[in-house]
């Protein structure tokens, strides 16, 4: 798989001079339920914040996704909350949250000001915990992403998202609270991703996001002490991509609603890998830390590839390669 491209001389100037998406002729738009996105590229929850808007033109993205919001305020985990090992990044931030009210008052205006549709990630500890948070958030979100898969909180519990019944009841309850599109973000460690995706669809979800980070236990060398405070953290980054590719492939074959791929995406080629196995949109997490402009670069490169190949959109681009 290809190396991460590195910006060339005067990358900064070139980057900000070029706004290829502005006069773009290619339509990369994608719909999640009734929500139309300019293009299929957005951040992964927890790997984005309004502060990133200070570094990059966020309005070139298809959507922004908030860090997961819980109903009531939470403090987060002790240090170290994240580290890097050879296999990737491991985090167990513990999802500090200001609660729904705090989010609306303090954070939402900043997300809204960025321009693109705001997808609010919602968390809870029980299947019936999601609906109240969505109710509290009201019409703030342009869509809601249910994080049923955050593996960082329960040190050894089973994720809500690994149980199709739990997914179904969580989604059904949220469906009663909102007309906005519902995205269900599924975990990697489930017995059957197909059943989980089908449960989400059956209960009225408009899309599934596949997947979250993979729970892991990184140890320090020699002392073998846990490398992060919570012992267990989520592994993310490029090494999880082949694992998540399979899950996206399986999910896309098992449901009719769009599948948003998330796992180790760093470049347009990585995104195209996911599109080629059936994804309709992509989320970028870890890659933004080392290369804040990674998402923008992916959008622009997808545009460019379509233009170069004189095709109308990503589907055609993939078919073209397939046809070879």
């Amino acid at each position, binding site marked *: 798989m290809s*190396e*991460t491209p*590195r*910006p060339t*001389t*005067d*990358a*900064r100037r070139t980057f900000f001079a070029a706004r290829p998406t502005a006069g773009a002729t290619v339509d990369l738009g994608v719909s999640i339920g009734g929500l139309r996105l300019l293009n299929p590229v957005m951040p992964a929850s*927890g*790997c*984005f*914040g*309004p*502060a*990133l808007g*200070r*570094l990059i033109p966020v309005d070139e993205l298809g959507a922004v996704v908030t*860090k997961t919001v819980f109903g*009531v*305020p*939470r*403090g*987060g*985990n*002790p*240090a*170290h*909350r*994240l*580290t*890097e090992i*050879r296999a*990737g*990044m491991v*985090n167990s*931030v513990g*999802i*500090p*949250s*200001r609660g729904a009210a705090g989010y609306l008052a303090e954070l939402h205006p900043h997300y809204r000001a960025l321009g693109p549709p705001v997808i609010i990630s919602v968390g809870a500890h029980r299947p019936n915990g999601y609906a109240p948070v969505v109710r509290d958030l009201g019409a703030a979100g342009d869509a809601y992403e249910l994080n049923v898969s955050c593996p960082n909180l329960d040190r050894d519990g089973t994720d809500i998202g690994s149980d199709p019944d739990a997914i179904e009841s969580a989604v059904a309850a949220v469906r009663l609270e909102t007309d906005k599109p519902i995205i269900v973000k599924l975990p990697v460690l489930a017995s059957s991703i197909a059943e989980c995706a089908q449960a989400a669809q059956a209960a009225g979800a408009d899309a599934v996001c596949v997947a979250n980070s993979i729970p892991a236990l990184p140890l320090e060398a*020699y*002392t073998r002490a846990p490398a992060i405070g919570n012992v267990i953290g989520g592994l993310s*980054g*490029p090494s999880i991509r082949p694992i998540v590719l399979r899950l996206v492939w399986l999910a896309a074959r098992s449901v009719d609603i769009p599948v948003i791929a998330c796992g180790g995406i760093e470049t347009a080629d990585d995104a195209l890998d996911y599109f080629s196995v059936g994804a309709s949109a992509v989320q970028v997490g*870890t890659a*933004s*830390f*080392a*290369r*804040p*402009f990674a998402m923008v670069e992916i959008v622009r490169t997808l545009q460019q590839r379509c233009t170069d190949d004189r095709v109308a959109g990503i589907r055609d681009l993939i078919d073209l390669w397939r046809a070879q």
Partner: protein
Amino acid sequence: MKTPPTAAETRAALARQAAFAAADAAALDGLLSVRPPEAGPRPEPVWDEATVVSHEVVRERYRRLTLSCGTIAATALAGQFLMITVPPHGGERILLPRPMAIHRRNPLRGTIEVIYGVAGRGTTALAAVTPGQRLLVTGPLGRGFEFPAGTRRALMIGRGVGVCAVMGSVEDAEARGIRATLVASGRTRGSLIGAAECAELGARFIPVTDEEGSADLPALGALLRSEFAAGPPDVVFVCGAGVLTRLAAELGAEWGVPVQASLEAHMACGLGYCHGCAAPVRTDPAVEGPLVCVDGPVFDAAV
């Protein structure tokens, strides 16, 4: 077969390290708080491609990376840091950028300097960077050291590579006519950073080392009390060891002057959105505490 890291010696060394780290963390306990509102606005961070001007070994254990990066050199405040994206090296990928204190700023030449020690995977890969190469950096970041209004004398204390975090404030002191004293603590004389810089900036340089016993806390405390017997400094800046921060806070209490300490934490974004860099500041458990990257890296320290 490679000789395995030998039992007794390795363990002893690691035990020392672990004890040190534990003492350090414990020493910080209850000491830190976020400072009141900033005097002026912080410079806007940018990402940029910095050209490596030079990259050389300094003081036995460290490497100095001089970067041509006008945007950051022109704006960085003392005590701010940058995130360096470590380029892939022979297939080794470093996913997270590494935070590094801005040791020196030269706005005229548009350069900045960073000094680092080769510790783990990240800094090992960084050490492979060569002059002329471009490095993706983001900065300036964080809230740095701030001189209280009317400061005339300042004491800076750094341990190991921690000296770099306070060096920007020594530069500021020189520019503002503040008399600066820099205590550089380290294991050996050969490892100490800062002598040349202090000579250049006209600051007093006090080297203290483990090998000479002068870095031991009681000895250092005595030294500083006598150094400032005639009149205490107006502020103390410290970085590099929790135990030194505690000593500084104790001296600050004795002298009745504020103490600011720069901290480290594992970071991913450097901008406040990943929530990875929780500071060891005690707060209501239901509320997230301060983040080192935006609320720090410099915090108030008081016993």
